[in-house]
């Protein structure tokens, strides 16, 4: 048992180290920004004095190490400074957006994960059947579509084309093409508003996940111990539940983690399409303004989520591995 704890501790340590290095990379990257932000925003009206004042105000006159340490301690205490573009407090700005993004991702995951696992396992069990072939072509097509293509098709089908024949509201579309939620939108309303973005993401993620699940299960079913179970005359259902499933946990967890991580990134495009006030949207907007503090903070949050998900998968697969759980 101590061995497995040591392994987990090691992975956790590695995760923290990675986070640290990643934050350093992102900060170092932005440090390389040519020109000066102050010159950029002051533009024509820049004088030596105003630029210097601006630099002092934003701490640009300090050496990189100090500013990085400062930023890191700030980030850890959720004090991320102010946006250069609109002077708003970043923590405040981001927290609302982050919760919006998490809501969208969570909503998607809640539909996509069970659906994909179920359909993927089914495809693996009925390999080479008509269903399996259809699934293969469908998922292959689906993962080939850019997110915005899926999004606009859905908008066309479920929003634009439904105008005027809508049974719910007077001549309105079934679903809104713009997911404009605000802080006082109710939960039910929110679900309705983010339906199209969530459906878009679901279609893309389900396809990826189904393929991976199918591959993992097929790989598993080819193992000698599954053949042994068949030769022992065990019922099919029991083979799946008792023999395949315990060993499938690690690969399935892995598949889920990879796809959730994918979701975190996939939201960016979808948020832009549906003009959804999430972290991805704000990130893209501020990339265009070169608003370093906001870009840095949101990139860090994306990276941290990503690393955390992978770390979780890693640890879960250690915990579910009988060889590690029961060492010699």
């Amino acid at each position, binding site marked *: 048992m101590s061995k497995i704890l040591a392994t987990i501790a090691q992975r956790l340590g590695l995760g923290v180290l990675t986070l640290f290095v990643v934050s350093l990379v992102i900060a170092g990257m932005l440090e390389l920004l040519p020109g000066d932000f102050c010159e950029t925003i002051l533009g024509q009206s820049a004088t030596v004095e105003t630029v210097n004042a601006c630099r002092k105000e934003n701490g640009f006159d300090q050496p990189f190490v100090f500013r990085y340490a400062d930023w890191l301690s700030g980030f850890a205490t959720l004090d991320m400074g102010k946006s250069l573009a609109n002077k708003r407090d970043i923590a405040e700005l981001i927290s609302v957006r982050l919760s919006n993004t998490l809501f969208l991702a969570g909503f998607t995951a809640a539909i996509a994960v069970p659906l994909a696992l179920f359909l993927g396992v089914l495809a693996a069990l009925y390999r080479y059947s008509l269903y399996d072939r259809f699934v293969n072509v469908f998922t292959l097509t689906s993962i080939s579509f850019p997110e915005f293509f899926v999004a606009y098709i859905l908008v066309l089908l479920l929003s634009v084309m439904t105008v005027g024949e809508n049974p719910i509201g007077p001549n309105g579309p079934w679903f809104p093409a713009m997911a404009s939620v605000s802080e006082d939108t109710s939960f039910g309303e929110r679900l309705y508003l983010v339906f199209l973005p969530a459906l878009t993401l679901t279609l893309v993620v389900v396809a990826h996940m189904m393929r991976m699940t199918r591959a993992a299960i097929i790989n598993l079913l080819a193992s000698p111990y599954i053949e042994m179970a068949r030769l022992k*005359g065990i019922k099919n259902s029991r083979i799946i539940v008792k023999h395949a499933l315990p060993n499938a946990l690690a690969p399935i967890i892995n598949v889920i983690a990879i796809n959730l991580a994918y979701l975190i990134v996939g939201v960016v495009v979808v948020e832009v399409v549906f003009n959804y006030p999430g972290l991805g949207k704000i990130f893209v907007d501020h990339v265009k303004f070169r608003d370093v503090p906001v870009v840095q903070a949101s990139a860090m949050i994306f990276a941290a989520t990503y690393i955390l998900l992978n770390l979780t998968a890693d640890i879960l697969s250690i915990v579910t591995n009988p060889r590690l759980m029961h060492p010699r």
Partner: protein
Amino acid sequence: MSDTKRGQKGDILLEMKGLKIEGRADEQWIEIVHGVDVTLRRGEVLGLIGESGAGKSTIGLAAMGYARDGCRISGGEIWFDGTELRSASDEHLRKLRGHRIAYVAQSAAASFNPAHRLIDQYCESPVQHGVMSRDKAEKDAKDLFRRLRLPNPETIGERYPHQVSGGQLQRAMTAMAMSCRPDLIIFDEPTTALDVTTQIEVLAAIRDIVDQFNTAAIYITHDLAVVAQMADTIKVLRYGNTVEEGDTRRMLAKPEEKYTSDLLAVRTYKRDQRDRPENEGPLMQIRGVDASYGTVPVLYDVSFDVYKKRTVAVVGESGSGKSTTARVITGLLPPKAGEVYYRGEVLPADYRQRNKDQLRRLQMIYQMPDTALNPKSRIRDVIGRPAYFYLGLTGRKLEERVRELLRLVELEPDQYINRLTTELSGGQKQRICIARALAAEPELIICDEVTSALDQLVAEEILKLLQRMQDEFDLSYMFITHDLATVRAISDEVVVMQNGRVVEQGPKEEMFTPPHHDYTDLLLSSVPEMDPDWLDRLLAERAEMARQGRVLKAADN
């Protein structure tokens, strides 16, 4: 077991008539078993023997009405105790499997589910088939574990498969097959993956248990000596056809077919020992070599000599350090202590420090011809490369040399020179490997288990070829093997290794005549012989020795 309602000993239990099986290759079905008949009576053990590709495993599985993915039973009838299995429903087959017909696989390590304890896997069949309650099954398991002489029979079931050694797992799997007291067990090469000393224990255990419960069995193996101990009748298969079938003793004494007598003759090949050359020092000396993988020591103070034109056989079981010794000599694993002398001079420990000539003199032939040849290379380049690299041959000269080498290893140059290495059989590949080694014009060749991946008849051809090459080119061999028949066949000197140490060494005749070191004795006596009484005699001898307080134990227990 006196279960009369299941019929009497001697009744026909299994009858397969005109069994045909097809395998899927390249999008089409190809027949791999061409109408084989099998008849098995209650309590009888049938040995299915043949080389790779004979179709023996496929036939064994067909006796359960089962075909692997990519195979299908395409013709014939399979009658098991009054039921025709090909037309039986899936549900009916499922109820037979594990309950009345059980299966023991070759690789127990892969065939046990890593996620469950042994006892849970044992109890699954009896409980699921409704033969007995879980409690009773557990008690029964402990009893069987005891009868199969597994250590700690009370608690071993609590372990997970990866916590148990290979030989023990194989016995646990036999116990599992026995759990429902089936009428028939299929043993599919159950000892092939085991060391000889471990094999004995498993063989004895299987035979006892089959005897005790009067179970019928099909015993599948490629080793005639093993099947001689286990089977009442033997069926020899080749390319999916029956070659010969008959009573074990009769067949061993008087085989009817040439193929069978060839198989029988395999282990009898033996050459006389030649003495060390006089007034000439050893070609290579290994002196006090200690080596380790990382921090794990694997070799302790290994020393022996290799003489010119002579063959040293390094013998030992898996984990004895014999292949590691080869890695030290070739310079792949620089030793922690000790030296390798070549013609009296110290060889640099790392192969990267050796010069071209030192590398050339020392060549290597590998165990798996499949992985020893680049699948994307042509024979011309495989053999031509060392001749170009070491000897600078090009153009016509190189072409001539490659052809000459092909003729030496008895492959027709015109036919083979342009082939890809993947277009050859295992034996042909090994010949190419020999040609590649010869192309460097070496003095010493290290042969690492060169015959163990080959069928026995092919292996013997290769041994004879190596022998001829030695005589023709004055080669020295260092022959790494676990197989004492090979040692007897080819060696002049023998080095016995165990757990990284040399336990005994000397000229072959000395080594094969008693008195032996204990481990050498265990190793020598564990090699199965064609004599059907060999196992009984050996077990009796060992029991006698145990009474005298001398116990030979394999490392596995």
